[in-house]
């Protein structure tokens, strides 16, 4: 059996698909999720059924009703022990990675995280490719264990395997023991985030680095971002200099974005920054140095001082915004 671990209300489609591709012909793909006494699983079973998953095990215990990494990991280790799957997969999101790491530690098993490719061998060895340093490097590795544990990155290659008929997914209640002391690492409070555009999801990000020159220098980036319906981002140099808060930082240790348009102003394009913005559809670099890596890798490049280029761009946007009105009034006079 291949077991997929569901840590949120949603299941990324690639998770069961990859599990299916790794499973032998007659090997079932099943799923496990966590819940308290009264936690409802909503339409999870229906969604999983659509992905060819035949069974959803609900590991239940009063301590599992809210996110509790140690307790969830402990419960997963117990489920692994009970069901004896040959492999266990979770998404490489914060929760999936954390719960699997806890289960791996408890079950004394190795774990391969952030995998983009997985393939099995006859002798049970998995050949995995995992991303390193945010995707700048790929690591080929062998995973050898009685139960192979891996988390899969969003960019995983999904092998084309025929889906099992989208049958019913049976829900199996599965009470688990959780040592009471594990209550020590439960979430005790949730504070909802402010609504509005966030760096991670904004369609446009206007980002500044050392070349912006200081905190005040970001005013013109703010203005452009607002004009384009986006938000301001920055490089680690801007964060470290105290020009911008860390929540604005794009990159390996900041936020990874995939905007429609990324405008990199005075940012050299170090790998650790690049991995944070490289999934954007269009990248425009503005830099005094035409040799800067960002100027080579971007879609479009403007050579120049950010404090000359951006004001000129804003002026041009305003000019064009007024233009049709001018054209119309000319028409009316005629």
């Amino acid at each position, binding site marked *: 059996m291949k077991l997929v671990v569901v840590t949120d209300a949603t299941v990324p489609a690639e998770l069961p698909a990859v599990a299916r591709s790794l499973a032998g012909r007659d090997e079932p793909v099943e799923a496990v999720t966590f819940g308290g006494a009264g936690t409802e699983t909503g339409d999870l079973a229906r969604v999983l059924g659509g992905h060819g998953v035949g069974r959803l095990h609900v590991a239940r215990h009063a301590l599992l009703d809210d996110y509790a990494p140690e307790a969830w990991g402990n419960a997963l280790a117990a489920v692994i022990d009970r069901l004896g799957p040959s492999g266990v997969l979770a998404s490489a999101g914060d929760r999936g990675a954390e719960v699997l790491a806890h289960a791996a530690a408890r079950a004394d098993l190795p774990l391969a995280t952030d995998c983009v490719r997985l393939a099995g061998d006859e002798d049970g060895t998995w050949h995995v490719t995992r991303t390193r340093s945010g995707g700048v490097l790929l690591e080929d*590795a062998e*995973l050898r264990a009685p139960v192979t544990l891996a988390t899969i990155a969003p960019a995983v290659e999904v092998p084309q395997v025929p889906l099992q008929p989208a049958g019913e997914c049976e829900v199996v209640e599965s009470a688990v023991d959780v040592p009471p002391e594990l209550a020590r690492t439960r979430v005790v409070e949730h504070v909802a985030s402010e609504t509005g555009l966030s760096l991670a999801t904004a369609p446009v990000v206007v980002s500044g680095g050392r070349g912006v020159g200081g905190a005040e220098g970001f005013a013109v980036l703010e203005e452009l971002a607002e004009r384009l319906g986006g938000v301001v981002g920055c490089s680690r140099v801007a964060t470290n200099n105290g020009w911008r808060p860390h929540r604005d930082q794009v990159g390996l240790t900041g936020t990874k974005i995939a905007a429609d348009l990324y405008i990199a102003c005075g940012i050299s394009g*170090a790998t650790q920054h690049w991995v944070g913005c490289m999934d954007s559809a269009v990248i425009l670099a503005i830099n005094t140095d035409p040799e800067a890596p960002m100027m080579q890798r971007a879609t*479009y490049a403007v050579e120049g001082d950010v404090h000359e280029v951006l004001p000129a761009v804003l002026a041009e946007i305003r000019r064009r915004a007024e233009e049709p009105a001018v054209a119309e009034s000319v028409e009316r006079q005629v």
Partner: protein
Amino acid sequence: MDIVVCIKRVPAFGAQVPLTDDGSAVDTRHLGFTIGPHEECAVEEAVRLVSAHGGRVTVLTVGPEEAGEQLRYALAMGAHRGVLVDTGTTDLDPEATATAVLAGLADEPEPDLLLFGDASADAGHGQVAIRVALARGLPVVGGITGMDADAGGGLRATRETPAGTEVFRVPMPAAVTVKEGLNLPRYPTLPGRLKAKKAELRTVSCAPEPGGLRTVGLRRPADDRAGAVPLGRGAAAAPAVVDILAELGKV
């Protein structure tokens, strides 16, 4: 409050990542080394907590002898002691690294707080801390970007998720993995550096058994981006830029 911070020596590369000819590792002959940003924040937080509550900060690293350089950097930031677990290399699998960290902790008094980075900057397995914490019977919370010691000897720790902030209240002793953004790490001062240079490091030798994940080789992903299209220079490029913005439907 006694705090141990685990830091890892990692190569500092720029726009290109050089690999050895056989692809087995990053070619570090022409690179400097650093500690990851998450771990820098962990050191900073430890130094702040100890200056507020008293105690001492020990930094621990697993690697070659040269990793003493990273310990000294942390000492220059204000840590008090350094422990080098000499394994000859940082290229260990996460189970082996955890074993080596545990070997380094074995003769240390139990700290109130064991701090880690959320993930190491190069390998990024995201599991060494959890393995170490479990082996030591410590509670562990991960990905923390806010923390405070509370009066009852516990720790209030927060982490950001797309849905909002999650709050944990954890009894100490505990292990915590932190993320960059927790604080703004200081730059070491010159007197700090001089003092760190002379500091004594405790060295422990360790040859951990390999775990079940074996690195076969590293490679660079294919980069299929064509070179950038130049739009011109300075203010004169503005019309071309706005054409693109219009094409993308942004203005």
